[in-house]
């Protein structure tokens, strides 16, 4: 093989290789297409400088349910401190709930008793004023109070939630960060059932926003005090003092989730573009 051919051969990002190794060890099967797509996402995260804002990212890939439980990122830097469970703990999902590729791709909740335990506590983040949660979903809710991911703590008061749908305070898809009864609650009214990528983020004490598909959708500038908590976040529900909340299970089909520090508009746009590219590469 000539040197020019070797130089032209596509390389796989080291974090994608690391993920594929862990996903395979957990029982997943990694196709070339998926490995390439995840590698391209990792390259974009580095190139567009949003990698360090992502503490946990699960692309819901890996060939089967066991592979889909393995997060790509578990900390803000490769080789650095990791946070949360090495794999998401699956509560009540079965293999048929996961489809890796295609228009129906993702992990499907049932709105009744299925959720994931990440083990990632919001107090793993450096500050309560620099936070983001994100998800990509189809079959999202248009009523009720289901939650994409998050945690609530009573004492000290700490609330960090990205709602599938919220019927409290305002109605719609919401990002909530504050205490149990008051907080920064930007809300998107009539959001519809598909989210290419929705980010809820707080970037300063008096600045919270929701970005959808990379564009700013709504903001909230209420300044509230809150405390990040030690509860491991749940996905498809929220961890409320250690348990999921009855009546707030999401029935959406999630295509990824992330947890990390606050994202500015440039980072949000680049992150969403990379997530959408990843999903497009997987046909979903």
């Amino acid at each position, binding site marked *: 093989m000539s040197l020019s051919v070797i130089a032209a051969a596509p390389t796989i990002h080291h974090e994608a290789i690391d993920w594929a190794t862990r996903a395979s060890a*957990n*029982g997943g099967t990694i196709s070339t297409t998926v490995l390439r797509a995840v590698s391209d996402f990792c390259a974009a995260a580095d190139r567009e400088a949003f990698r360090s804002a992502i503490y946990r990212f699960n692309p819901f890939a890996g060939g089967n*349910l*066991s592979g889909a*439980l393995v997060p790509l990122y578990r900390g803000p830097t490769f080789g650095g401190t990791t946070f949360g*469970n090495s*794999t998401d*703990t*699956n*509560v*009540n*999902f*079965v*293999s*048929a*709930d996961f489809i890796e590729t295609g228009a129906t791709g993702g992990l499907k909740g*049932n709105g*009744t*008793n299925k959720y994931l335990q990440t083990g990632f506590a919001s107090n793993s983040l450096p500050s309560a004023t620099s936070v983001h949660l994100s998800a990509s979903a189809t079959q999202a809710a248009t009523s009720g*109070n289901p939650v994409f991911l998050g945690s609530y703590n*009573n004492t000290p008061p700490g609330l960090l939630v990205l709602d599938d749908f919220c*019927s*409290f305070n305002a109605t719609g898809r919401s990002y909530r960060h504050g205490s*149990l*009864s008051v907080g920064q609650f930007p809300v998107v009214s009539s959001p519809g059932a598909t989210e290419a990528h929705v980010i809820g983020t707080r970037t300063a004490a008096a600045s919270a926003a929701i970005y959808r598909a990379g564009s700013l959708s709504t903001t909230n500038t209420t300044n509230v005090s809150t405390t990040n908590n030690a509860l491991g976040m749940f996905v498809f529900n929220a961890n*409320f003092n250690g348990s999921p*909340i*009855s*009546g*707030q299970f999401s029935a959406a089909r999630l295509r990824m989730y992330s947890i990390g520090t606050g994202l500015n508009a440039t980072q949000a746009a680049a992150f969403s573009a990379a997530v959408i590219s990843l999903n497009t590469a997987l046909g979903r």
Partner: protein
Amino acid sequence: MLLRDLSMPISETEARGLALVFSPALAARLGQLHAAYGSTNCVPVPSPLIDGRLMLCADVLTEVAVGGLLAAMWGAADQTVLGAAVEVIAWDAAVAMMPTPEPMPWGE
């Protein structure tokens, strides 16, 4: 209908329409079996019903065949006891027996 009356293997479609209902004592035994033979890749956690029993969606039965995520746990269980102790009812009927969610402190 009891679990022993169910034809196995069960299809995903049929399983999703059914719920497995059992006592807290049996749930504790199943928890022990999962601790010994299961993994975090599939943790069946039953939901409480208003009559004191617990329920799981019957789709967990799609994981008990060889190669399934619950195969080892299933293989270690006493099939005769399980078959006689687990009631199978319609999923919608089981969901209707779940407690009404407690109002949350913030008024939801």
